[in-house]
């Protein structure tokens, strides 16, 4: 009985060198302890594990190659695409929210040490009224933002009629079709 097991194991691992050449660790178990049957059992267990790991690695590689094709294709497609100037890349994304011209002009006109606020009206209606002040705050740093109109030296009105604010202002600047900038008189 024992001999048959040993024979089977030896036959299975007759080409030991070629099996190990496939993957590291693949091959019969070695070691002094235990008999032939134990060695065979250990070999099968170990080789089973190596086979499972190899299968897992193959699956990983398959998924990775599958996804990589699309990524490389995108990269290749973008190879000839135009590059943005840094300033354009800074500013263009905000066109989603409002006219970027308003951002640029406001930055040019409001002094760096001034305090300002943003009043968003509804004429014509604005879909995301809360986003507009956030975008102005993002772009106008280090100018100080205040939520209180009374504390502001400058007021940006967005979709808002300036005169309706009952503010005394010394000057009004147009920031494009949607916004005005008021210099408040104190």
């Amino acid at each position, binding site marked *: 009985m024992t001999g048959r097991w040993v024979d089977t194991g030896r036959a299975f691992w007759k080409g030991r060198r070629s099996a*190990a*050449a*496939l*993957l*590291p*660790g*693949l091959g019969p178990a070695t070691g002094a302890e235990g008999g032939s049957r134990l060695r065979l059992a250990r070999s099968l267990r*170990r080789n089973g*594990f*190596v086979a*499972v*790991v*190899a*299968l*897992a*690695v*193959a*699956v*990983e*590689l*398959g*998924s*990775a*190659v*599958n*996804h*990589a094709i699309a*990524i*490389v294709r*995108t*990269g*290749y497609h*973008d*190879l000839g*695409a*135009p*590059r*943005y*100037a*840094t*300033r*354009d*890349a*800074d500013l*263009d*994304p*905000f066109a*989603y*929210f409002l006219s970027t011209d308003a951002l640029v002009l406001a930055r040019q006109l409001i002094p760096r040490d001034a305090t300002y606020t943003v009043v968003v009206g509804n004429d014509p209606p604005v879909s995301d009224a809360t986003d507009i002040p*956030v*975008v102005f*705050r*993002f772009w106008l*740093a*280090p100018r*100080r*933002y205040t939520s209180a109109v009374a504390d502001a030296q400058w007021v940006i009105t967005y979709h808002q009629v300036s005169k309706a604010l009952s503010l005394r202002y010394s000057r009004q600047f147009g920031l494009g079709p949607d916004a005005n900038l008021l210099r408040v008189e104190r």
Partner: protein
Amino acid sequence: MSVGFELAGGDALAAAVGYALLAVLGFTRLGRANVRTLGLSYLVGWSVLGCALSVLLIAGAPFAVATDVIAASVIVAGCVVVRRRWPVEALALLPRSKAWLAWLASALGGLVVGSVVVSTAVVASTTEWNPAGDWDATWFWIPKAASIYYAHGLDPAAWRTLNHPEYPPLIPVMDALTFSFGGGFHPSLIMVQQTLLGISFLLAALALLTKVIPSWIAYPSVAVVATAPWFFSRIQTPMPDQTVAYLVTAGAIASLGWLHDGRRRWLILALVFLAAASLSKLEGGFWSAALALVVIAVGIVVHRRQGLVAAILLAPLALIELWRAWLTAHGLRTSNPDYSLTSLLHPSFLAGRTARLSYATTAVAHTAEHLLTSAAGPGPVMVPLIAAVALATRRRPAVAVAAVAWTLLAGMALLAIYWIGRPSIVWYFDVTGTRVEPTFVAAALILSALVVGLAIQTDTTPRQPRVLQPRQIWRPLDRLATVLTHRDPRAAGALGTVAAILVGLGVFVIADARPTFSRNGAVDVGALNHEIVSQFLYGFLAGGYPLTAHVSCRSSSADNLQFGCFVTTTNRAHPSEEPAWNLGVTCLPVSIESPRCFSSNGEALQ
């Protein structure tokens, strides 16, 4: 986009700092190894400089390019001195396998990672970012960086006007550094830097993994992460979540490396990554602390007394405390108004909110499954990967137990935040879940490769536990050590299985307890008080009001479903002001799916 060459100088400085530290620790040496560890050098240098600059700014140092250069020079000089005085043998790569299938797997994995790196760089140079998709970056992360850049330091007045002032400063500091090297306030350069950081993470993961596991296992697993849709599509994002994922995953690899071979250099590397993660975002601190606790516990079991050295991984908590001290000194709030960790100590409050836990558990599990299958393939295809990890757990129990325990602990920390959080659970998870969860999935994929790779090696067994002396104080740990090390892998497998089942059952029982517990019995007045504090006080805090509140509810009906609640508040800035008002609360007899109680001003008390 034309990126200025000025940035390259700053990045080279970070890489030099990282290289110096890696050389001291013996992770690299002059020669070809430098190229291999370029990504790792950058990630380490970025982390070290980020921590150093954050601490310097908290201490009041001015923010400037000169500060960065001086800090980098001091660190490099220190590393040179240490290297000369205490030379360390360089950690060698594992010998490359001559088996042709292994070579093929390594080559294919390397090709995929390389092509993704090149493609990512090309795509990053031609695309713009999406402020609407990364709204928090537009709202406060980048404005914080702008405030540091313009104020030449941490300006408490400016910090106070920005949302979430309590979030740690490392990310804004490094973004401000990008502005400094980039020659002005150029938000688009942050996306370039983030892409570089993402690429360096991939290369760093490869560099670390190939120190301990065969490359034919390391390369494919990193390739899976690199090509995962949720990784590639967010590699440019200026949000800090992806960065935290890089740092925490790298820290986990290094920590498990120490568990594997006991070399302390791994711990120092892990410390650098975890410190940077803790100073990047609150979640980074939670996950770093969870990792430290797991590594200390398993480390003591595996390495005995020497395992205590892993307590160094708790050092990032000191950095967080330093940041909190700065916030306190300038009258800024120190905790996130969306939740209070002390709520976890209020059982009846937690019991009344199990519907949130139930929702979060389902949502987290569903999202994790989606992320995993989108990265590695549909469920059946993942069976070999799961089987390989399960089999490896029997062969390398200590590392496997640590990896699984940390992943579970980190996941439970996330669930706990959703459980006690103030915002509506649906909104809270929608906004944060898909940003935060990829951290676990990326870490799980890479750590699974580490566990499998360690298990498959026959000739690099970890340090065996030494023979213990009788009556040694660590003797009680010996049995557990026997289970967790090579002496009895079957017992380890059984223990791991039982532990996993118990944890799973525990989560299930807690999450599904709502029909029978606290949602249909008498309303717990203590829980109601805490709920009102949670809803209102945190709302005030989020609005910037430094209030503390006390709520006292009393039943006003025979059926105990109507309550009158007296709310008193104290303004910490003006202690003489103590606004107080009464609030009516109405509760339903039974409510399983919807909030049970509502305040008289229409607030749903969950």
